[in-house]
């Protein structure tokens, strides 16, 4: 999966966006919306809530862009906001219960191959934070440093989290193999 993940680290663009230039903001964050939406989907499990979380994140990003320090990459900053929105939504009491049945009628996802069933179950049983780390690193192809920035942890902790998740899925895996 190749998303437009090149970092729009365009300082003039950021400054224009901070000054209220919607076109500059558009250029800055548009490439991040789809991966942000996918990150939210991986954390929340349904498109409706994923869109809500991403929408909230975009709104906050627009309001808070001035807080992004010069030189800081936009991508992990934005993903961190998305992830935080998702966590806030997941904390809502009875969140899952009141979300009953909303996926009914969706186009079913393709049937997983038999060999993937165990892995899929294993992934579902991982703590959300660990699953998120795997998603960022293995699906969105973010480098460890950006996974760390997104999750608000050190690179060593991010790598450790990914390793821990992999180890749970495949106990024979070795830390060195993470690269």
């Amino acid at each position, binding site marked *: 999966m190749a998303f437009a993940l090149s970092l729009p680290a365009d300082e003039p663009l950021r400054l224009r966006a901070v000054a209220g230039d919607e076109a500059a*903001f558009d250029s800055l964050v*548009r490439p991040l919306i789809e991966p942000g939406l996918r990150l939210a989907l991986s954390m929340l499990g349904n498109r409706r809530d994923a869109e809500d979380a991403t929408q909230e994140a975009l709104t906050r990003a627009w309001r808070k862009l001035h807080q992004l320090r010069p030189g800081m990459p936009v991508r992990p900053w934005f993903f961190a906001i998305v992830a935080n929105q998702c966590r806030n939504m997941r904390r809502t009491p009875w969140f899952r219960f009141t979300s009953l*049945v909303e996926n009914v009628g969706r186009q079913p996802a393709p049937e997983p191959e038999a060999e993937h069933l165990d892995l899929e179950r294993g992934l579902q049983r991982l703590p959300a934070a660990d699953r998120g780390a795997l998603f960022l690193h293995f699906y969105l192809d973010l480098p460890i440093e950006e996974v760390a920035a997104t999750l608000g942890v050190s690179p060593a902790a991010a790598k450790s989290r990914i390793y821990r998740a992999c180890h749970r899925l495949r106990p024979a895996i070795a830390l060195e193999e993470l690269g």
Partner: protein
Amino acid sequence: MNDLRQQIHDVFARQQTQLGDVSDSSNRMLRAATGGRRVNRQMWPSMAGVALVLVAATAVATSVVIRGLHPRPSTTTRPTPSASATTVPTPMSRALQVPSTTPVILFHDPVDFNQVDGTTWDGSAKGRVVVGSEVGMGFVQNPVGTLLGGTGYIRDRTGALVASPPVNTKGFAGTWADDGRHYCSMLSKSAAPPAGGEPTTLQVTAVGQAPTNIVQVGRVYDQTSVGVAACSIEKDLAVAVQSGSSGNTVQFWVVQLSTGRILWTRPSLGDIRSSRDGQYIAEVSYSQAAPSATTIYGPRGAVLGHLTGRVEAFSWDGSLAVQMTDYGGPVSIVRWRDGTVVWKGPSDGGFLAALPEPGGQRIAISVRDPKYPQTGGFPPGDIYVVSPDGQAVELLTNVMQ
């Protein structure tokens, strides 16, 4: 490693297929973000597969799963699906016919998401409660299900608007108190906290009245929040929880509502779960070296017990805990003081959610059911009402969550 990496990627990719084309969403969200507006949630059509879920909704209280004998824990097994489990995919049309004070569980109608239905805890009555796009945006019921709150509204079971709380965030911005007529919330001065953060104030609000400030506790930053884990008028307590940027708990406080006095507080790195009255607080900790473990604190902060695994919820009186060994793993209900297991959920059913019965000891638990494979974003779940003697009644089956 490369194989595993590819396999993990493939699993995620398969789950992402439901997203489809997002270009329209991107445009719409960008416009809304810069325009300072909120976009209404889109309700996706729920026609195909609706019968499957309506089956579940109409199967309320139809199947007693197993009757366990105390003190042996009962273990729930999966019932055989009823042959009559086919039905017309229409929303529940009959209004819920119970006294206005009867506790009920509210849920979105399986056919019409903009309709809220209710069922009594024993499943003896069920029916339509409220209809409207507003409730389709999501709601949180009070413990007895007599009021439901959402973004900017609190309605009763007749649908009448009883209060219009200020809209500070999406969804109901409070935690219902155990009396069902108040709620606690955290207030910060500005909607968007400044770079250095700003303090937050615990408030309690009687429905329809102005909020009362209780005490300044916690601090909100751009990527952190302060929430309320419990709000109890009966015990005059609230539990406020400060979260860090990674969603982890940083600190929690137990506050006396009438005085604003902080009765006790504790820094924490775990997940915090509280009984509805703030009397018992479960701190779930986990590390790479050991499986999850839970410490239970009492009303004054004393450690009352340790459990393996995660405690996710308590019964209304706090004597029973919903426990699971790991995220998504099988669920049990235990008397946490002595470790007695009173009920074990299906061995193949991972925990999804729990709700304590107000004033009672039963707990509604939603668990996964592998008989019903996940075809959408939420895994299907079965909802059981478990009594303290281990009896479990299945209220809903194969409902998407």
